[in-house]
């Protein structure tokens, strides 16, 4: 038994806007200020050879830890690398890994989460135990083993980080699917002859994307952190290949001496990238979240 629901509390809006299809809504979420920002970040990384003022891989031993100047606009680091050029170049690797691992993680995690939430029972238990096993792996140790076997390259790096993202998406999607699996509208759809696949595609997946998009920024932040952590151990990204996380850690010791520039500029780059992905994730989330918060 339920009672009449009070729409005044639920609908906190004025006269509804005319509805727009999901495809159009997603498109307009991507063609937006955050979408433009992400495009700009990608473009800068892509055009790094044209923008960079110095070779990012050749240090000048005579120009260590120089403060920002007209010659080195972001200064130089303890090895004599030009911080500006390396910050620009690093975007290539970091954005690839962040986006790649997030998309790959979601691409695997979402369908598995749907399966766990929709099928329930034994399938669910087995999948949940599996995600627990993955989450119990020490990430760095696991990465070292995989790198030892599969070689030190960017694809392996993306794969490893995506691997650790998968359980997050699985659990999130499952948590969304489970309560709506028995919702009346899902039952109605089944009574109208929806098979499992079309039911999932039409009714369950759109709902499950809401938290997934919100998770994007968190996952990409995690990805950049992982890259930095691994490169610190000489895994995934070998020195002196430019990468934001390792640039920050290389300069971190200098901050106490007032030499802030080797860390701050790549730090700002990470911040901008995370902010952009977060804003874009929120846009996408809102595009899916129509018709009320349920």
């Amino acid at each position, binding site marked *: 038994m339920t009672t009449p629901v009070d729409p*005044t509390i639920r609908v906190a809006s004025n006269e509804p806007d005319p509805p727009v299809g999901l495809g159009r809504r997603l498109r307009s979420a991507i063609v937006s200020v955050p979408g433009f920002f992400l495009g700009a970040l990608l473009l800068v990384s892509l055009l790094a050879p044209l923008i960079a003022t110095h070779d990012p891989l050749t240090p000048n031993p005579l120009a260590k830890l120089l403060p920002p100047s007209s010659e080195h606009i972001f200064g130089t680091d303890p090895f004599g690398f030009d911080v500006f050029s390396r910050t620009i170049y690093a975007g290539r690797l970091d954005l690839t890994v962040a986006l790649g691992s997030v998309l790959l993680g979601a691409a695997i995690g979402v369908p598995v989460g749907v399966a766990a939430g929709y099928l329930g029972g034994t399938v669910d238990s087995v999948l949940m135990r599996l995600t627990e096993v993955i989450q119990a792996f020490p990430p760095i140790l696991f990465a070292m083993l995989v790198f030892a076997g599969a070689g030190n390259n960017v694809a392996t790096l993306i794969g490893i980080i995506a691997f650790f993202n998968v359980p997050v998406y699985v659990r999130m999607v499952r948590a969304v699917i489970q309560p709506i699996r028995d919702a009346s509208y899902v039952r109605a759809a089944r009574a109208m002859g929806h098979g499992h696949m079309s039911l999932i595609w039409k009714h369950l997946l759109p709902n499950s994307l809401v938290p997934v998009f919100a998770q994007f920024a968190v996952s990409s932040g995690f990805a950049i952190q992982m890259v930095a952590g691994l490169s610190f151990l000489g895994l995934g990204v070998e020195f002196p290949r430019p990468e934001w996380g390792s640039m920050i850690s290389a300069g971190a010791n200098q901050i106490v001496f007032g030499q802030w520039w080797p860390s701050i500029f790549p730090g700002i780059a990470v911040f901008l990238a995370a902010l952009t992905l977060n804003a874009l994730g929120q846009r996408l989330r809102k595009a899916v979240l129509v018709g009320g918060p349920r």
Partner: protein
Amino acid sequence: MTVLDVAGLSVRLGGNDVVNDVSFSVAPGRRLGILGESGSGKTVTALSIVDMLPDGAETRGEISFENRQLNSMSSHERRRLRGGSIAMVFQDAVAALNPVIRIGDQIADVYRRHTGATKRAAHTRAVELLGEMGIPVPAERARDYPHHFSGGMAQRALLALALAGSPRLLIADEPTSGLDTTVQAAVVDLIRGLFQGSQRALVIITHDVSVVERLCTDVVVMYAGMVMEAGPAREVLHQPANPYTQRLLGSVELGASGKPAYIPGYAPQPWALPQGCPFADRCHLVEDRCRVERPALDFDDQGHGVACHVVRL
């Protein structure tokens, strides 16, 4: 002297006027029913009293508890009032109880906070309260967790919890609505027994006419955020004057035989409230004036008030 005084309360939520100029008061020992259908603003009215409106709500008007204005109190004072002198019970009783704490301990905890009693004394009182709520073998049930309780039992436990602090006002939001019909009657009778002959005041929010009939001394009938009719429950239910009240009461039985009784049309959506009487579009007595001007609540000397241009007391 009144326990609760609401004067000219208006609430705007998300750009919509969901409560418009609502006034009523409750004296000690009285049981007021706020009767309304979905979108009537009855729940928002209750939430304003306990200061639990959603963020972004704009409120006008005055709410006083025992002649002290709530608006002028600090949020700390209001919070203290809410836990002690004003208690509240909700529709979903199982969700309103803490799932990981034994029922008896939850009640004892509230009792201790208000009386400073010893742990042992508080526990004894908790068991006593559960017994008063008609829960069989209360000493054993006090050790249960909320999920062991059925809906009706949980509502009884929630009442015990609410009354543990000896409140002078209880606000109950649809306390029987989630329950089976045969259980509803028992809970209504219980509440009636708890309040009858005591100085405690009750405000009960409900969509169910029979709850008002069985339980309340006074009633406020709301529609689309506005008070349509108010007064002693007997007067309003047996001699309803406002066309909305009349037809609402008429549709409860669905028509004993033949054509089912109902009110044609739908209540206006909160974003499309008409300028005049909100019931005008569904009213069989509608006049031109109803569409341009809102009727004001007009009371007779019995305290029976009606807001209608056409029907006068």
